[in-house]
């Protein structure tokens, strides 16, 4: 928590330097500090499409450079960046027509396979794909990226209640999908 507060202070100082004097070195530091998570967020949103994700990440940072004066400090800088990235993703998504037929299977092929994926992980990945897009997106931001519900609501421009509902429903669906594994584990423990 203290680390995260210190990180936020460093970000705010760097942002102030950029705003005061178009300081490119300060912006480069911000870029290097946050590119990893922004690209990871976009890769996940784009189901592992690395090239498009990196193009959108580049667009995100160019936009951040131009619109930095709109960062008012009401959220952490990283959260603001995720919001910009998510807007870029939504805008690009509107331009790309959805795949015709068998969309879920197509997506399944493009998803990055975890290294040494176990059966449980593979089943879990399949269960994730059965969630609605909103549930997947909320779980990505709340659990995988470690944002609070409030921060996820800010990034996704969703009401807080909706975020909480999607998170709860998503987890409940995942639990139902993995009930077989739970049963097997209980039987194994009992024997």
């Amino acid at each position: 928590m203290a680390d995260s507060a210190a990180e936020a202070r460093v970000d705010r100082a760097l942002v102030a330097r950029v705003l005061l004097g178009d300081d490119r070195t300060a912006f480069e530091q911000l870029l290097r500090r946050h590119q990893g998570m922004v690209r990871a967020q976009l890769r996940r949103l784009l189901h592992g499409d690395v090239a498009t994700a990196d193009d959108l990440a580049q667009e995100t940072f160019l936009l951040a450079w131009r619109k930095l004066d709109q960062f008012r400090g009401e959220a952490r800088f990283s959260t603001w960046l995720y919001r910009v990235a998510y807007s870029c993703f939504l805008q690009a998504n509107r331009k790309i027509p959805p795949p015709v037929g068998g969309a879920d299977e197509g997506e399944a092929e493009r998803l990055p396979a975890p290294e040494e994926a176990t059966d449980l992980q593979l089943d879990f990945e399949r269960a994730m794909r059965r969630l609605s897009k909103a549930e997947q997106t909320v779980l990505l931001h709340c659990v995988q990226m470690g944002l609070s519900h409030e921060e996820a609501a800010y990034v996704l421009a969703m009401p807080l209640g909706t975020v909480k509902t999607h998170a709860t429903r998503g987890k409940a669906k995942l639990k139902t999908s993995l009930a077989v594994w739970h049963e097997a584990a209980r039987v194994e423990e009992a024997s």
Partner: protein
Amino acid sequence: MNPSDDELIDALLRSQFDGPVLDEGFSRRVMQRLPQHRRRVAWPVWGGALAGAAACWLALLSSPLLQTGWREWVSGEWSAPAITVLLAMIGMALLALIWGVAEADHR
């Protein structure tokens, strides 16, 4: 859902996320594409607008069209000069609106 189920789901979700991506030249590529200045300088735009307005005023000064059109419009006569002046004003307002919206979109 009990707390241990919740923790298992959270752990599985986290294991599916690869975490931050390595830079591998990404930041360098972005910095190369970054414009030199964040804000565009405003004075050429305002200078151009003022020069354009002054040129229009000078050009119309000797023409009776503007004065006649304005006079007839004010007196409620819908003559050709009055309609021309009205259309010109609507056109300029529309252009200013489109320009304003485009600028707001780029900021």
